[in-house]
């Protein structure tokens, strides 16, 4: 019986988590906006409830009804309005917007309700108690469980039976279809936000009397526990989410019984986030698919002229050099701001350059500062060495965090990293090797010379400034080096980069490690600035704010980092200890920051850019002129290393129950253009994806130059000589034409080798440049080489993708619909280039193409697919005369009429056996 009290109180909190989680999943699934501010709704409801009952003496029933049935729906409607604006936004924008809402609510609550006053809500529910064995069970506990169970069950029944409920499930499947079927998806979503927000409000009202005092941040984060419940429901299943909430609540309580001391005491609060992290890591990948890009890749990539940037940088540096003379006793705040510049450089490299997500960067700062303290104080490591080591200690942890980045994308990656940060906080912060459970915290010393009473702070400021300058130069250098190109390519198109030959998982691990290192150094430096730190200064909420800031901050590196750092420090969003503002001012600044984040998120992308007129005048000011066109001397094309071929035998690919490709056998040798044609849905692109390793065939083999490539990934196949273009072009949109084309060669050079991601020899660089030049010359795109690819026309983009393929060390190319979107003259030019490279370099090309003019003009041999099955192979002439091919294109069994009476008499019978593999060689 000793378990019963724990189970009962676990069920109470668990049912509240479940209730909140259910509302969260409902709004997320129907609108595709994951509401990080879900807990903020609960906060508002709890404060409103307190205000109505305690301040205005309203009966609790009335107050609860107002909170849940009025407050919740009103907030839901406002959030729906926001979510609608965010429908097409990138993940980072959605996160920034909802974090903005969270900050608005938190700051607004603190402005309305002075946080200096203690508020608590007494248990308002009937509090009769009875005994089960020796355990006291209260009526209020049963009521909370009952309310949550009934509400969740009612929602489930509503989902199954009511038309609106079915429409909510339908809008998840396809909003467009629902719309054309006559039901407004907006109306459906509005209702789901109303219900979701009411559930969150109800959880706030139920939670309020369980807390010793109301606190806007704690309340918001209690509901974050619902994320774990949502993960158990795979962010989809409502009953599973509710049961997940119950399970987490009960196990949490049992943990407090089982672990009363030592390391495992942290398990109870960490459990929801352990669940979140682990579920995301082990779930089947296909269940967690997010389509929205992580970061909006700017289409117009105008940058301030370098001369002006250098001038501004110099100006900023001069200002920063004089700061100690100006700001007096605020100097420590400026030093902190400088350490944040390092942090935002680290986060910017990860988020803005390489398109990854981390909602755990405050954890790296914490790791850095702990390592610094322990190394210098406990182990007497020299200060400078300790600084480097504390950065290095974070590197393997960064590598751990990159594991979800390899498996997950978008929101699920964001949540996994967020869970990781919270897990770290609850499980490890109080350990002796981190902050210890000692409230006084850790001492982080400075070197003796910086401890001087009168000059110490000033000297330390200059030390940090020096390091920031070094790091800034390093980051700018990285961004201009091979690694920078690879990272931006990774953000623009991971598929394009992998099929060009880079092992993108190596790239991902590398960027997470680098970013972790820099963030940990920033943490260590900041710790030594304030000299004494505790775990409470490294709350996971900060990671959310960091992410929102790096998203809304403007400019290229390093400007966004500088703006974000000083913005953060001036607004004092995170640091009540900042001496710059009074609490009231700080509240208003946080509010303003939250509103700014929301406004930024709902501003259309094209209006966020520098106005054209200003761009032009800045260009003039910076003496920017278009570079004179280069003339490149053509060199004779070197023939491919060796003859070879791509061989596919008996390929079968199934998605779920649908067989997309069934029994395809083909061969594409070097020195020949082999066509692969067939109507829509015939399985051509699926076959291509099997060849380049982007899907897993259920049967059959793919051989490259006589050897099976079953075990090789896309990048390894590329390095063995298989190049690839895509129907939906996989270009690196933020890079220039030249950089795109050069990456065709450079990507294979980097390959799986981390060191070669970073360093390239001059000879290698020359070879890459020469290959890129020749490929651009061949494709006639030299005159646009400095333009950004995202701004080009379809025809130009097709040529860039082809040039990238031709610059690479490939002897076999897979070209997927290269002429779609080209006009006839462009198509003709395209065909001429292909014929030339095959004739002069001896490349082999396998071409999927709809434009039959192009196919008949350049292909030597054709394979025809229909319904995933091969229906014909032979020469172009034979294919054109084949009734089967015409049947495949024009349809049905009426084919003999379409081709006229010239067919042999047995043709109709032949055409009707469409699955038959007719071989017609000439």
């Amino acid at each position: 019986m000793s378990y019963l009290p724990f189970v009962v109180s676990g069920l109470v909190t668990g049912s509240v988590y479940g209730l909140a989680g259910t509302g969260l999943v409902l709004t997320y699934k129907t609108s595709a906006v994951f509401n990080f501010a879900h807990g903020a709704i609960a906060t508002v409801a709890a404060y409103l409830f307190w205000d109505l009952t305690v301040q205005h003496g309203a009966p609790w029933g009335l107050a609860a009804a107002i909170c849940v049935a009025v407050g919740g729906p009103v907030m839901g409607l406002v959030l729906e309005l926001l979510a609608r604006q965010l429908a097409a936004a990138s993940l980072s924008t959605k996160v920034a917007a909802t974090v903005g809402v969270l900050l608005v609510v938190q700051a607004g609550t603190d402005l309305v309700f002075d946080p200096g006053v203690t508020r608590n809500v007494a248990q308002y529910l009937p509090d009769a108690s009875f005994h089960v064995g020796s355990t006291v069970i209260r009526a209020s506990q049963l009521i909370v469980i009952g309310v949550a169970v009934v509400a969740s069950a009612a929602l489930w029944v509503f989902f199954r039976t009511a038309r609106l409920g079915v429409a909510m499930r339908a809008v998840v499947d396809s909003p467009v279809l629902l719309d054309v079927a006559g039901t407004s998806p907006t109306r459906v979503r509005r209702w789901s936000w109303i219900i979701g927000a009411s559930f969150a409000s109800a959880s706030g009202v139920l939670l309020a009397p369980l807390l010793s005092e109301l606190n806007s941040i704690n309340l918001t984060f209690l509901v974050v526990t619902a994320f774990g419940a949502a993960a158990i429901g795979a962010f989809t299943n409502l009953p599973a989410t509710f049961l997940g909430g119950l399970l987490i609540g009960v196990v949490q309580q049992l943990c407090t019984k089982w672990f009363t001391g030592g390391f495992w005491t942290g398990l109870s609060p960490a459990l929801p986030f352990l669940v979140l992290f682990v579920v995301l890591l082990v779930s089947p990948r296909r269940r967690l698919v997010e389509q929205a890009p992580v970061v909006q890749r700017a289409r117009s990539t105008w940058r301030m002229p370098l001369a002006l940037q250098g001038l501004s940088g110099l100006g900023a540096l001069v200002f920063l050099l004089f700061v100690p003379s100006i700001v007096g006793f605020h100097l420590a705040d400026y030093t902190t701001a400088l350490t944040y510049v390092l942090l935002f450089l680290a986060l910017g490299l990860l988020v803005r350059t390489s398109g990854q997500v981390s909602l755990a960067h405050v954890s790296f700062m914490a790791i850095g500062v702990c390592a610094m303290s322990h190394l210098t104080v406990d182990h007497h490591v020299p200060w400078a060495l300790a600084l480097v080591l504390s950065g290095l200690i974070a590197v393997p942890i960064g590598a751990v965090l990159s594991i979800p980045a390899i498996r997950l994308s978008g929101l699920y990656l964001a949540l996994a990293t967020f869970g990781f940060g919270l897990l770290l906080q609850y499980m490890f912060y109080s350990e002796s090797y981190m902050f210890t459970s000692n409230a006084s915290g850790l001492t982080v010393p400075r070197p003796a010379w910086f401890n001087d009473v009168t000059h110490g702070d000033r000297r330390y400021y200059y030390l940090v400034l020096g390091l920031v300058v070094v790091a800034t130069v390093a980051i700018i250098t990285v961004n201009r080096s091979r690694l920078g190109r690879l990272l931006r390519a990774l953000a623009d198109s991971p598929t394009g980069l992998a099929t060009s030959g880079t092992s993108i998982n190596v790239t991902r691990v590398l960027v997470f490690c680098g970013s972790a290192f820099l963030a940990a150094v920033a943490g260590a430096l900041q710790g030594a600035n304030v000299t004494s730190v505790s775990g409470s200064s490294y709350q996971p909420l900060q990671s959310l704010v960091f992410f929102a800031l790096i998203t809304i901050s403007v400019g290229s590196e390093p400007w966004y980092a500088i703006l974000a750092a000083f913005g953060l420090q001036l607004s004092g969003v995170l640091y009540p200890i900042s001496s710059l503002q009074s609490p009231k001012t700080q509240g208003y600044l946080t509010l303003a920051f939250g509103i700014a984040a929301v406004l930024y998120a709902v501003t259309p992308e094209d209006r966020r850019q520098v106005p054209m007129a200003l761009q032009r005048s800045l260009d003039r000011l910076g003496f920017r002129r278009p570079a004179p066109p280069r003339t490149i001397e053509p060199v004779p094309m070197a023939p491919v290393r060796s003859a070879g071929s791509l061989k596919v035998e008996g390929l079968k690919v199934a998605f779920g129950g649908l067989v997309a490709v069934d029994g395809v056998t083909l061969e594409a040798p070097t020195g020949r253009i082999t066509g692969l044609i067939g109507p829509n849905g015939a399985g051509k692109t699926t076959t291509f994806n099997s060849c380049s390793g982007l899907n897993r065939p259920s049967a059959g083999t793919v051989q490259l130059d006589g050897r099976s490539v079953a075990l090789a990934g896309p990048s390894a196949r590329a390095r063995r000589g298989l190049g690839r273009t895509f129907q939906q072009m996989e270009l690196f949109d933020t890079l220039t034409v030249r950089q795109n084309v050069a990456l065709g060669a450079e990507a294979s050079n980097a390959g799986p080798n981390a060191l070669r991601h970073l360093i390239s020899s001059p000879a290698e660089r020359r070879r890459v440049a020469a290959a890129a030049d020749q490929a651009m010359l061949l494709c006639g795109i030299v005159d646009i080489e400095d333009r950004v690819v995202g701004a080009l026309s379809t025809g130009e983009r097709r040529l860039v993708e082809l040039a990238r393929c031709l610059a690479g060390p490939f002897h076999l190319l897979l070209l997927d619909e290269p002429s779609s979107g080209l006009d006839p003259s462009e198509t003709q030019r395209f065909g001429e280039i292909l014929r030339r490279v095959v004739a002069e370099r001896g490349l082999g090309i396998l071409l999927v193409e709809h434009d039959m003019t192009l196919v008949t003009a350049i292909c030597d041999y054709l394979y025809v697919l229909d319904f995933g099955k091969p229906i014909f192979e032979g020469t172009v002439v034979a294919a054109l005369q084949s009734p089967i091919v015409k049947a495949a294109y024009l349809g049905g069994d009426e084919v003999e009429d379409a081709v006229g009476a010239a067919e042999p008499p047995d043709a109709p019978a032949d055409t009707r056996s469409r699955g038959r593999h007719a071989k017609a060689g000439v």
Partner: protein
Amino acid sequence: MMAGPADGISDGLSDVASTPVLELRGVTAGYGRATVLRDVSFSVAPGSVTALLGPNGSGKTTTLRTVSGIVKPSAGSVLLGGADVTRKAPHRRAEKGLCLIPEGRGIFRSLTVRDNLRMQVPPWRRGAAVDAAITAFPVLGQRLDQVAGSLSGGQQQMLALGRAYLADPTVVLLDEVSMGLAPRVVDEIFGSLRALAATGVALVVVEQYVTRALELADQVVLLDRGTVGFCGSPATLDEAELMKSYLGVDVASGGAAPSADAGGDADAAGGRGAPKATRSGTARLRSRG
């Protein structure tokens, strides 16, 4: 036109008011910076069947998406029954009698068949919804509580087509309803389209099986790179021209393969005789098999 299911409708045309059920006036539309349709105009008479043809990328699907309101045109207007609906949301157009059966499978995969049928009708027509669909496609009646995603491809398409019966539309847009289906199922689907047309509903058919679409059609609109290349009755459509537009080669003269009997091909394939030949050919095949 020769004898065929469409003829009865043609006769009926003169009786019905001449206001087209659907009209596009100078529609220009696309996605982002890419313009797909340029100045597309055509109209659909009540109860008629229009075959919207053209090779891949010519803008057929975009035309249907623009008509149904999923894509907003940058210029021009869309009229339903004479009323301008260019600025109306898709569900408002559905209220006015427009019904799109989209490309792929137009079903809610995670819902049961019954729930799909419920969602496919607008709220004001839920009464006899399920019954009407089951009458048209009896196989659905046996699977009402099955999740739609687990149906076979043909059954999924029938479920999608069910909406054309349930929603009481005046014009139905069909986007590649035969795609990826076995020929026998395609026969069945086309049979149901014929029956649907016979009830006086106007159809706009995008179809890869060109000859099947032509069988059904009173009017052909041939799109070529986003513009209307031909608009008229199937009888006046030069079939050699159609082949050229699709296969990119002059089939009549053998294209890349000049052949001795090319002239004969051209005579047989082109001209007014072709539709007749098509129909008789079908008959011949059916009788054999």
